[in-house]
């Protein structure tokens, strides 16, 4: 949600990205810790207590209900794994998240490259175009997509009045709509890590390639692209993990046949009132998200991708 132009211009330091926050994010070289352990704990206490009670405890309890109601069992998980409906939801979510990441990469890399250019108005303009949507709430952005894609929406009206089509297209409430809107929402989270890495590459490297006879395209493919891969990996993982757990966009733009994990969880909790099962679904989602995040921690390499000295 939050990043700033200053960071974008001079390479992000402290850019905030959900899912990108991990051990090492605050890479502190310890300098003769000046506060005593007692004072440190005292300062930390309010936050620890707050998070403990309002965040961790509820989640742990939710996860527990998935195996303790009515008594200790794993029936929920078995159901989850065997019923085709639920398995389908999982695969659909993974598939859409994957597609979102790929699409975001294809669209995001050129923008990141543009932003990383040394000077001129374009990098700044690109930065604004990336950050303004980022600063807009996801809810409003989903609403904007509805107005674009609905039968009576901007795109249909434009195409109709230009005579390109003769009847409105059905775009809303499809997998495609969800994919498009999620790509749009998550695109900045792809752009920023890639930009960060590109910005930190020494200018001399591609210059050396050119000097040694490579064409610009070759210099890019052989030198810049491979060196930017850590940023690419970070962006893809970030977008993928965030897409997995997304609720707003699938809820508003998805139809009854495009259930994703998050909307399924909501449905189980609020309509079917099957909390233990919702807990089981949450557990799987959590394990998936955290597993990927922690498992690829090294790839996410926070100190290179997010903060930059």
């Amino acid at each position, binding site marked *: 949600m939050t990043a700033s132009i200053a960071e974008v211009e001079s390479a992000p330091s402290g850019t905030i990205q959900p899912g990108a926050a991990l051990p090492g994010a605050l890479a502190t070289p310890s300098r003769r810790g000046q506060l005593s352990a007692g004072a440190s704990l005292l300062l930390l206490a309010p936050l620890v207590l*707050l998070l403990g009670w309002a965040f961790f*405890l509820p989640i742990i309890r939710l996860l527990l209900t998935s195996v303790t109601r009515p008594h200790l069992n794993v029936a929920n998980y078995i159901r989850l794994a065997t019923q085709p409906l639920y398995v389908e939801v999982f695969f659909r979510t993974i598939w859409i998240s994957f597609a979102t990441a790929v699409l975001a990469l294809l669209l995001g890399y050129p923008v990141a490259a543009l932003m990383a250019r040394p000077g001129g108005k374009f990098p700044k303009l690109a930065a604004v175009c990336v950050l303004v949507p980022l600063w807009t709430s996801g809810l409003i952005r989903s609403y904007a997509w509805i107005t674009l894609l609905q039968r009576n929406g901007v795109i249909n009206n434009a195409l109709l009045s230009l005579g390109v089509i003769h009847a409105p297209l059905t775009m809303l409430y499809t997998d495609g709509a969800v994919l498009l809107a999620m790509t749009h929402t998550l695109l900045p989270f792809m752009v920023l890590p890639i930009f960060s890495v590109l910005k930190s590459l020494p200018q001399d490297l591609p210059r050396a390639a050119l000097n040694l006879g490579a064409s610009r395209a070759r210099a890019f493919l052989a030198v810049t692209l491979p060196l930017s891969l850590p940023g690419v990996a970070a962006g893809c993982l970030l977008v993928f993990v965030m897409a997995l757990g997304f609720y707003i966009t699938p809820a508003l733009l998805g139809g009854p046949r495009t259930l994703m994990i998050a909307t399924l969880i909501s449905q189980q909790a609020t309509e079917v009132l099957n909390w233990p099962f919702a807990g089981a679904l949450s557990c799987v989602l959590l394990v998936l998200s955290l597993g990927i995040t922690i498992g690829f921690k090294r790839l996410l390499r926070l100190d290179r991708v997010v903060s930059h000295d």
Partner: protein
Amino acid sequence: MTDAPVRPRRGKIRWADLPFGLLCVAILIFLMLPTVLIVPMSFSRTSYLTFPPSGFSLEWYRLYFGDPAWIEATVFSLGIAVMTMAAATVVGTMASVALVRGRLPGRATLEALLLAPLIVPSIIVAIAVYLQFAPLGLTGTRLGFVLIHTALAVPYVVLVVTAALQRVPPSLEMAGLNLGASRLRCFLEITMPLVAPAIAAGAVFAFLASFDETVVSFFISGVEHQTVTRKMFEDIEFNISPVIAAASTIFVLASVGLMSLADFSRRAASATS
């Protein structure tokens, strides 16, 4: 960057760049279009956006300001956001100081845990918190909202403030000590002023995190008190009307304005240090 490292002069157009440039322009339009489109929608005379746009009207704004449900929700959200901003900034700054300047066992795990709210999908948080708050009667109450919003907003403050604290060279505090200041004095007079812009930025992030928060707020809103995001969510689902566009335009402009301010102050601050 590296795509055109041997630009002859800044601003000169290289024709070989054109396809890349066009591609970028298309993507940038894709990025900006949805958000930008809300604005003319909120001013249109009709309840759908025609192309080319028709007429100009402030009807939807009138409806927004005249609707008690909208105003009440907005005021409620603002109140929560302000309280969250205060709480998150204080709690977050204290924690940042402890993390950067303190002696803590297992600091790495601690950091990871403190940033967890950014990683866990909000739907999970939403239903978990609902399960916890409902029996305690905290759903729909100001206290309940502020508690969970603060928990979700603090990581932003912590990230920003720790980054700023780390950028303060330790030699500055050493110099302060050497010149006779007590440790507390050093911190208050030397470190804090240098970190203040980051704290302000963190406060803005916390405010917006709370105001824009949708999923959890949806679940713990009650009959008497609902956030503006919940109202907006419901209206989009069941009652779509350009009043939403009017409200959205106002919120977007406010968000962008606030974020630009936070951004600007941070840039100004780092220029003098």
